[in-house]
Structure formats: structure tokens, C-alpha cells
């Protein structure tokens, strides 16, 4: 039962944070909880308890393969949160800290959910708990972004509930009991009614795909990421998207078992390639560096979907990529937050010369750019290389070629924006910023740490992680 602590510790911390009377010390709840969560997540990954999984919640191989990445990202964001919230001392951080902690607990719950209904409840709860985080800045733009997030995300998540019900009905129609645990659904396998499984798959793909930000359901993403504070953007791009991806993988396991795996793979392949294409095209035209990160996230979700479509080695690469995505997005969003704060602007028309004003953040940002565009020796290079290899091995040569073309376009788009804001001479707007934003260690170490983790993942992928990913692949595809 120790694994339930992964859910309960953050939720309890959130409750205490609500009651905590001091605004100055409340932010320290974030790193303290983050550290506890990281220790728990890694401890349980390396030494899994012997007891069989609870039917509803369990730290099963799939959760073990991805949740520690989210946990690490949270710790990085939490450490950054302390100096960030000190800068924003004019506002009460009660709701923000509590919402952030609750989001961690609910994300753990969603990763560990082994019941279709509970998975949905946890995912929806994550969405709701991140609403106050999104409009923390309280500007009209932030409310506009929140509204779109709620409406588009809410509709998507409602459709995934309908899909969950359809899958339940597939079980009933096939003579089952309508038990919605994934174990029971997978055990029923081909006994599930095929038409209902297909309807369920489409609805669940649209629903959780919206949450994940796959094109064409990605429209809320640039707005939300652009307006949210850096740490929230990082958590959304590296944590919430992982929740949705894990959910899709669990559902896909059931669809596979029901004998419709080929259909699922084909849809994932198409939607993945479409997402990378859409992201690449928007990256070529965007002028705002925070929205740029959102399109980059759409691209990486496309990559994950592609990996899931390939199955086997591709799926293993997708787990690898989940880690890389979380770490690089953390480094990029946090350093972009620093740059945004010092520059006082957010588009390449307003911002330039950040290498002079914030040299450390700019360095992390540029290194993060090379990481996210899959330059060696960063982790994403290796995961994407594996994916391309497995695409060729699976006979999807044209898909791999198309994918590489999109990556190249995305590279052009990203470098265009990043170098425009980093080089050149500082603009008037930034020189007038008062008080001057100082690059203290507290705001540099978290993004730098996440960046170094990306590097480490690429150069020396730990064997424990490799084993965890292999176990997760085996869980999803029981018969090799």
C-alpha cells in the first residue's frame, strides 16, 4: 500500500498548504513535497513491493516507467517555484501552491489508475486543479486562455468519458460483466464487441488526444502555455501530457487485446505524423517564444504517438522520449520564464539581445533548443533515432522520411525564434524594466539541472530505466 503515498502525500500537503497562514513560507511546501515524491517514486521503482496490485490503483510497470519522470520535473519546477513566488509577493500564493500540489497528487493517481472510470476521474481532476494555476497572472489574456483551456479541454474530456462508457458497453455486449478495470478488459480480449471497441477507441483518442495536445485538437495549447507562468507551462507540457499519453497507452492495450490493434496503430500513426507536420508549420510562423514552446510540445506529442503506433521497440523509444520530453520542456519553460521576466516582452519583435541581459538563462535556453530539436548528445536524439530505426524495421519507410522532414522544418522554426531573441542588441523595453530581474542561483539551477538530466539520459541511460521501460512494453503487449 506504500504506493498510495504517491497520491496521498501531495494531496495532504495541498490541504496543509491551504491552511498554512504565512505567504512567505508556504512556497517551501513545493520543494519539500517534490523531494518526498521523487524519493518515493524512485524508491518504489527500484524496489517494487511484492504484493499484487490493487484492482483500482497500482504502481504497475507502466506507471513505474513514466511517473518518476513527472516527479523529477515537478521537483525542478517546485525548486524554481520558491524564488518565482517570492518575485510575485504582491499576490497571495495560497491557491497556487495548493493547486500545484494537488495537481501532482492527481497526476500520480491518473498514472496509477488501473480502472477506466478512475482514470477518467483523475484526469478530469488534474484539468480542474490546473485552472487556478493558469490564470495566476490575472490578466485578461490569461482568462481568455483559461476559458479556451476549460472549454476545449472540457469537451475533449467529456468525449473520453463517453468513450469509456462505450468500452464498458463493449464488455457487457460481449458477455462480460462490464468490469472496467484494465486487467478485466484485457482478459476479456476478443470477447469484447468489436464495433463498440472501435467507437470507444475513436472517442478516447479524441478525448485524451485533446488533453495531450495532438493536432487537430491542440488549439488550446499555445494560448494556455503562452499565458501560464513558466512552472505551470512546464508541468502542463511535461506532466499533464504524460498523463494523457499513459491513458491512451492503457486503452490501446485493451484495443490490442480485442484484436483491433492494427486500426489503433494506423490511427496513431496518422495523427502522430499530422501533429508533427502541423507543429512544424506553425513553428515556422510563430513570433512568440512561449507559444513556440507550445508548438514544440505538439510536435513531441506527435513523436510519442508515432512511437506508440510502431509498438515494440517504437513503444520502448516512446517511453524513453517521455523522459526526454519532460526534462527538456522543464529546462526550456523555466529558462524562458527568466528571459520573459527580464525582457518584459515575448515576441521576437520586442525581445533581442538576451545573451547580454540574462547570459545564463540564454545559455540554458539555447542548449535546451539543441536538446529539444534532437541534437546529439542530448537524450531526445537517441530516442528519436530509435524511433526512426524501428519505423524502418516495421516497413514504414515513408513515414520515417516524412517524420524526419517535419523535424527539419521544426528545427528551422525553433532556431529562427531562439536566435532572434538571444542575439542582437537589447531593446529599449528591457532596459526600462525596473526593478531589474537578477539571475540568482535559485532561478538558474532548476532549469540547468533538468538540462543536465537530459544530457545524462542521452549519454548514459541508466540500466534501471531501461529495465523499467522494457517491463512497461511487456505489460502492454503481453504476447511478444
Amino acid at each position, binding site marked *: 500500500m506504500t504506493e498510495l503515498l504517491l497520491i496521498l502525500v501531495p494531496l495532504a500537503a495541498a490541504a496543509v498548504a491551504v491552511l498554512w497562514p504565512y505567504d512567505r513560507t508556504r512556497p517551501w511546501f513545493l520543494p519539500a513535497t517534490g523531494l518526498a515524491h521523487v524519493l518515493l517514486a524512485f524508491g518504489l521503482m527500484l524496489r517494487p513491493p511484492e504484493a499484487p496490485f490493487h484492482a483500482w490503483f497500482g504502481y504497475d510497470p507502466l506507471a513505474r516507467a513514466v511517473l518518476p519522470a513527472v516527479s523529477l520535473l515537478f521537483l525542478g519546477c517546485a525548486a524554481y517555484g520558491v524564488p518565482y513566488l517570492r518575485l510575485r509577493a504582491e499576490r497571495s500564493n495560497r491557491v497556487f501552491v495548493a493547486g500545484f500540489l494537488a495537481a501532482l497528487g492527481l497526476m500520480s493517481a491518473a498514472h496509477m489508475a488501473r480502472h477506466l472510470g*478512475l482514470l477518467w476521474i483523475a484526469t478530469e481532476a488534474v484539468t*480542474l486543479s490546473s485552472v487556478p494555476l493558469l*490564470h495566476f497572472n490575472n490578466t*485578461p*489574456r490569461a482568462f481568455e486562455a483559461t476559458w479556451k483551456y476549460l472549454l476545449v479541454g472540457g469537451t475533449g474530456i467529456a468525449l473520453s468519458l463517453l468513450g469509456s*462508457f462505450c468500452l464498458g458497453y463493449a464488455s*457487457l455486449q460481449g458477455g462480460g460483466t462490464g*468490469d*472496467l478495470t484494465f486487467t478485466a478488459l484485457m482478459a476479456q480480449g476478443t470477447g469484447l464487441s468489436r464495433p463498440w471497441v472501435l467507437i470507444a477507441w475513436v472517442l478516447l483518442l479524441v478525448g485524451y488526444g485533446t488533453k495531450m495536445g495532438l493536432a487537430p485538437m491542440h488549439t488550446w495549447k499555445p494560448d494556455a502555455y503562452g499565458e501560464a507562468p513558466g512552472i505551470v507551462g512546464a508541468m502542463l507540457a511535461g506532466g499533464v501530457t504524460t498523463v494523457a499519453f499513459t491513458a491512451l497507452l492503457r486503452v490501446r492495450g485493451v484495443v490490442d487485446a480485442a484484436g483491433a490493434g492494427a486500426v489503433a496503430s494506423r490511427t496513431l500513426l496518422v495523427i502522430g505524423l499530422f501533429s508533427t507536420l502541423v507543429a512544424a508549420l506553425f513553428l515556422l510562423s510563430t513570433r512568440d517564444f512561449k507559444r513556440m514552446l507550445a508548438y514544440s510540445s505538439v510536435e513531441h506529442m506527435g513523436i510519442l504517438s508515432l512511437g506508440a503506433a510502431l509498438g515494440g521497440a517504437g513503444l520502448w523509444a516512446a517511453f524513453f522520449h517521455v523522459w526526454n520530453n519532460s526534462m527538456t520542456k522543464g529546462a526550456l519553460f523555466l529558462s524562458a520564464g527568466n528571459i520573459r521576466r527580464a525582457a518584459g516582452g515575448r515576441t521576437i519583435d520586442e525581445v533581442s539581445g538576451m545573451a547580454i541581459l540574462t547570459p545564463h538563462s540564454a545559455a540554458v535556453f539555447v542548449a535546451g533548443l539543441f536538446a529539444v530539436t534532437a541534437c546529439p548528445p542530448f537524450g531526445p536524439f537517441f530516442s528519436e533515432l530509435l524511433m526512426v530505426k524501428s519505423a524502418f524495421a516495421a516497413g514504414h519507410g515513408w513515414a520515417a522520411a516524412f517524420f524526419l522532414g517535419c523535424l527539419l522544418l521544426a528545427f528551422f522554426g525553433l532556431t529562427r525564434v531562439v536566435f532572434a531573441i538571444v542575439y542582437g542588441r537589447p531593446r529599449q523595453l528591457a532596459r526600462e524594466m525596473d526593478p531589474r530581474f537578477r539571475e540568482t542561483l535559485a532561478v538558474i539551477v532548476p532549469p540547468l539541472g533538468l538540462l543536465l538530466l537530459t544530457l545524462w539520459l542521452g549519454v548514459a541511460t541508466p540500466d534501471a530505466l531501461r529495465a523499467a521501460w522494457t517491463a512497461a512494453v511487456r505489460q502492454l503487449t503481453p504476447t511478444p
Partner: protein
Amino acid sequence: MNDLLNLLIGLAMGLNLVALGTSRLPSLIRIAALQGMVLGIMPLVMEHELRVMLLAVAVATVSMKGLVIPALLRRAMRTANIDRDLDPLIGFLPSLLLGAAGMIGAVVLARRLPLRPEHHESLLVAGALASVLAGLLLLIGRSKAISQVCGYLILENGIYLFGLLLIHSTPLLVEGGILLDLTVAVFVIGIIVDRIQRAFDSLDTRKLTVLRE
């Protein structure tokens, strides 16, 4: 028994069309509330014997969907002091026609899907699909924030209808959790509506256009 249930579902489907055709915000809220109440009493009609938990779920649904949420929306409408007319992005007649076509499509589709013997005569699947479509139409076709929330409520009602197919097999705990989540969602939406009103001095979502490429 089944006839009574079908009558209620038919009523809910009719309300979809009324919602699509109405041009006033207060009546749209009233229709969504009424539909919620009709849905709330359905579990009682479906069961042969009354159980305490079932009764509790029914009471909770009726009071949430029928009373609390509409009251919240009405309050938001009053404090926002907005124009009570709905200006549609998709006109009333086209949306009515689309809604009616969707309803027919839903009935046809429901007949073609494999259903369990006890659901053959029931309109549940057709009603669910028709409501989901009507909700989506309202979400897309109306510009005021509150009317979009009503669309979202009708969409949810459709999903709730579908959930009734599984009422014997899903644990009540899960159903309760789903209901709670949906309620909180609408609460949160209500709060954001209020904030949008203060920030933009309007609830017309067409004004939310700062963020674009």
C-alpha cells in the same frame, strides 16, 4: 416500465430541439435544468426495487443538474448584467434543422449498433447520441459564455444517458466520482465566467480573440 423510460428519453430529446431553437438566455438555462431533472429521475424508473444508494444518486443528480447549477448560471447572468438575447453564430433555424437531422441520424445509428437484448427497445443510445450532438452544436453555435456552458451541460446529459446503460455494472463509487467531477467542472467554469466578465466587461466569447497567430 420501458415505455415510461422511453417517454422520458423522448422528452429529453425534444428538449434538445427546444434548446437549439430558443433565442433567450434564461429559457436556455431553464431547458438545460429541466433536462437535467428528467435525467435525474431515470435511474429510479429503470430499477425494479428502490435502493437507498440509488435514491441518493437520483436526489443528488436532480438537485445538482436541476437546481444548483442553473442557480449558479442565473446568478452569473444577473451579476454580469448581460443582454438576454442569444446572438447565434449558427442561426436558430439551421441549428434546429441540424439538430433534427442529428436526431434522426442518432436513431438510425442506434438501430445498427449491436445492443444487448434488454436495450433493443430502449431509446437510450439514440437519446445519448442526439444530446451529445445537440450539445456540441450549442457549444459551437452560440457566442455567449453562459450559453456555451449550457451546451456543455446538454453534452454531459447525453453522456449521462449513455452511462445509464452501465448502471448495473459500474460501482456507485465511480459514478459518484464522475458526478462530482462534472459538478466541480461547472463550478469552476462558473467562476471563470465571472472573472471573464470582470476582465472584459462582456461575456461575448467573440471578444476573446487576443490570442492568435
